[in-house]
């Protein structure tokens, strides 16, 4: 199964066997959210919401308080600007405030460009700043099952920063570790795909790069393997993000820098608003951009 099919089957089981619930807008529209929603039209546990982005996450929080472990589906991650309020201000705080269990599985789906100033790419950075909510960015079927199992074993909200580029992926993506690499790339979400391409190009030129795939963004705890790989990297590290680079990726870089004596830099979306015209798009770092960035570091 690829990632989309994995998401769909997890959801189907949750709705039909756990009395769980999935909520979202236009779920049964053409494509069933990229094939990630089971075609259970009319099923009582598949809830089509109105198009009101301001109240929908509140409804999901209410379902969570009722013990239904809702899956909240936001088709464009940029729409989370309106949809996140109840998750960050209620679900995330409720455990500390009142010891409530508010488990909501928040599927926020990013895409890559071509959709103007609001909806493109990832926006997990704005979620990470609030205590009480975990954030992850799975890209493979195995990782998706892992984060789902985590969700079912915990009682807190989980923000899943999805990317449409993950949907056709049907294999796992192991980290790539060398003995004496030039640099370690810490890849978030769909930047993993570009990171692999960039690392391959650099390797053709004799520059070895580690690739460490970051599944869990928050809580972010550098593992011994990450630190060893970074310490072994002659030119430090580079965090690659599908969100704006002046955001959470800098927090990760900060943690890694302080846990080692290596500089860790960041590449993500640029500090500007994307436009609809292709030349005005604001995309995650391309393989070419990563290659050039790494070469610049090495040549300094």
């Amino acid at each position, binding site marked *: 199964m690829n990632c989309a099919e994995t998401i769909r089957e997890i959801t189907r089981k949750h709705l039909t066997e756990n009395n769980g*619930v999935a909520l979202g807008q236009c779920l049964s529209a053409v494509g069933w959210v990229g094939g990630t929603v089971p075609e259970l039209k009319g099923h009582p546990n598949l*809830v089509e*919401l*109105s198009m*009101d982005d*301001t*109240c*929908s*996450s*509140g*409804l*999901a*929080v*209410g*379902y*969570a*308080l*009722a*013990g*239904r472990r*809702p899956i909240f589906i936001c088709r464009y991650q940029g729409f989370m600007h309106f949809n996140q*309020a*109840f998750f960050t*201000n*209620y679900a995330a*705080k*409720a455990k*500390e*405030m*009142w010891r*409530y269990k508010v488990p909501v599985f928040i599927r926020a789906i990013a895409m890559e460009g071509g959709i103007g100033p609001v909806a493109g790419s990832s926006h997990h950075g704005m979620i990470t700043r609030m205590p009480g909510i975990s954030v992850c960015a799975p890209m493979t079927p195995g990782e998706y099952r892992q984060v789902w199992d985590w969700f079912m074993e915990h009682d807190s909200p989980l923000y899943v920063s999805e990317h449409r580029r993950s949907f056709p992926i049907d294999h796992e993506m192991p980290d790539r570790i060398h003995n004496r690499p030039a640099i370690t790339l810490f890849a978030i979400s769909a930047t993993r795909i570009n990171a692999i391409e960039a690392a391959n190009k650099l390797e053709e030129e004799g520059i070895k790069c580690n690739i460490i795939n970051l599944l869990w963004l928050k809580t972010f705890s550098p593992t011994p393997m990450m630190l060893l790989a970074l310490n072994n990297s002659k030119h430090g590290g580079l965090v690659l993000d599908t969100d704006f680079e002046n955001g959470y990726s800098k927090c990760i870089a900060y943690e890694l820098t302080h846990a080692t004596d290596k500089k860790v830099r960041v590449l993500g979306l640029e500090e500007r608003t994307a436009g609809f015209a292709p030349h005005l798009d604001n995309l995650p770092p391309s393989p070419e951009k990563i290659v050039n960035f790494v070469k610049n570091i090495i040549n300094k």
Partner: protein
Amino acid sequence: MRSSRLGMTEGVSRQFSKEKSLELFSKICRCRDFEKNAAKAYDEKLIQRIPLYLSLGQESVSVGLSMALPEAKQFGQHRCHDIYICWGGNLRTLRDELLGLLTGCAGGMGGSASIHSPTAGMFGHDGLMGTQIPIAVGYALGSGNVTIAIMGDASAEEGYVLGAIGEAASKKAPILFVCYDNNLSILTEISARRSWSMVDEARAKKIPAIDITDDPWLVMHYANKFKNDLPAFINVRTCRELWHAGTGCDGPPEWNRYKLVKKEMATLGLEKEVETIEKTTQEYIDSIWNERRH
């Protein structure tokens, strides 16, 4: 439009037994005495630092609702001591919460605005105005439990409140929306804020709705009427006695519901019982607060 008689039905108090009316009056006294003691503790600086949102003057609404729907789960907002008390929340843990103690109902995290009582079926509020309404709708749909969602006339204007009422209408949520309408957002009147009414909003969404005064028997009457036809909406005109926050007072309220209730109790032949309830309730609530004064 605002008046102590808005929507009144003649003889509505006589629809209910004397025992019900006595229970109703007892709850009103319980709320008022608790709030008077909280105000006193605030002025004595026994309650420190927190903004205090007293319900004094609006308690008759919560009393009427709690008597019609005692099993309902409740989602209130920042001004919610009366909700907590009316559905049977523990008075000592509310007192301790206001005092910022670990023994408070939210361990000191809730203050006055974010209290809760799992035993009474009352959920906490996060401090953003009106957020309780979408959450309550989701809870009602997800659990199937009859739910009361309480808002003020200002929070009712939040876009997500209106959207959530629409969701409740579309999906037939078992929920009663109640707006405690004192015509003010702090001191800004409704007429300065909007040209429409919440009752019209609800009716536009095909929800039964009524606009009434804060007579507790009348509130109970309509809550009873609507509880088998949910979702529904009740807008209740209230007169709070003290400031938005704290214990300040801008003079007497437009009408004093407490005095009107006492008068009605007298017409029901319950004058003596009223005296006894007033005295015993005051002694009981005073004693609870005095436990923390010594």
